[in-house]
């Protein structure tokens, strides 16, 4: 049973990777997967990666202490580890947004917003579906939909950061 579940998960991840490739090629103006950044952007992004790394490091250390202390959380271990990845990505994204290096030189913002909206909707449907069917929390533990909920959390934080940045830039221009 667990074997088939793992195979299913692997297939799902592979489909996700293929979709990512298609989405990136669609959203970049030069139809390439890789986003190009200039020298200033590269420098600032290096700093952002450093902060993201330390965030994940501290988070994993925290998880380690929780594990040693045998403290049980109502979230499965895979979701807790996934939250570390999401946390790192969120730190990276928010830092890049505030330092004006989130968008690369070959990014088509409008197309990226379409892709982001699609991702938000897909995750939202999954979360709402599991809440309606009463499967979001089973026996006091969050189900797999917790992963979708964490992705939504990241997009929500990034959206708020982008709005704050846009308002701040508008204020500076006037």
């Amino acid at each position, binding site marked *: 049973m667990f074997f088939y579940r793992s195979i299913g998960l692997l297939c799902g991840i592979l489909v996700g990777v293929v979709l990512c490739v298609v989405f990136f090629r669609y959203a970049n103006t030069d139809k390439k997967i890789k986003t190009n*950044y*200039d*020298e*200033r*952007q590269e420098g600032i992004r290096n700093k952002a990666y450093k902060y993201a790394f330390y965030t994940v490091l501290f988070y994993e250390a925290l998880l380690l202490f929780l594990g040693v202390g045998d403290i049980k959380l109502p979230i499965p271990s895979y979701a807790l580890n996934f939250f570390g990845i999401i946390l790192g990505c969120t730190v990276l994204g928010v830092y890049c947004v505030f330092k*004006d*290096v989130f*968008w*690369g*030189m070959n990014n088509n913002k409008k197309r990226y917003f379409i892709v982001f909206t699609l991702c938000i909707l897909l995750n939202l449907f999954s979360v709402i579906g599991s809440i309606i069917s009463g499967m979001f929390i089973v026996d006091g533990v969050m189900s797999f939909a917790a992963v979708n909920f964490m992705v939504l959390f990241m997009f929500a934080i990034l959206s708020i950061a982008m709005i704050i940045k846009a308002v701040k830039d508008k204020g500076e221009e006037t």
Partner: protein
Amino acid sequence: MKNLRLKSARAAMDLSQEDLAKLCNVSRQTISAVEKGDYNPTINLCISICKALLYNLQNHSYSLY
């Protein structure tokens, strides 16, 4: 310290930050950061900016004749 010489040279060429950024193959925000003095560009970017402005200056002078 603001880089007013770059800003005035760009304005003299009637180029927007976006135009100069495209010519130098960098983002508009990078040109803005250089003009505001928030970013110290590498020698490669300095050369690109100089080339871009000189190129346009020559074009401009040619169009006068």
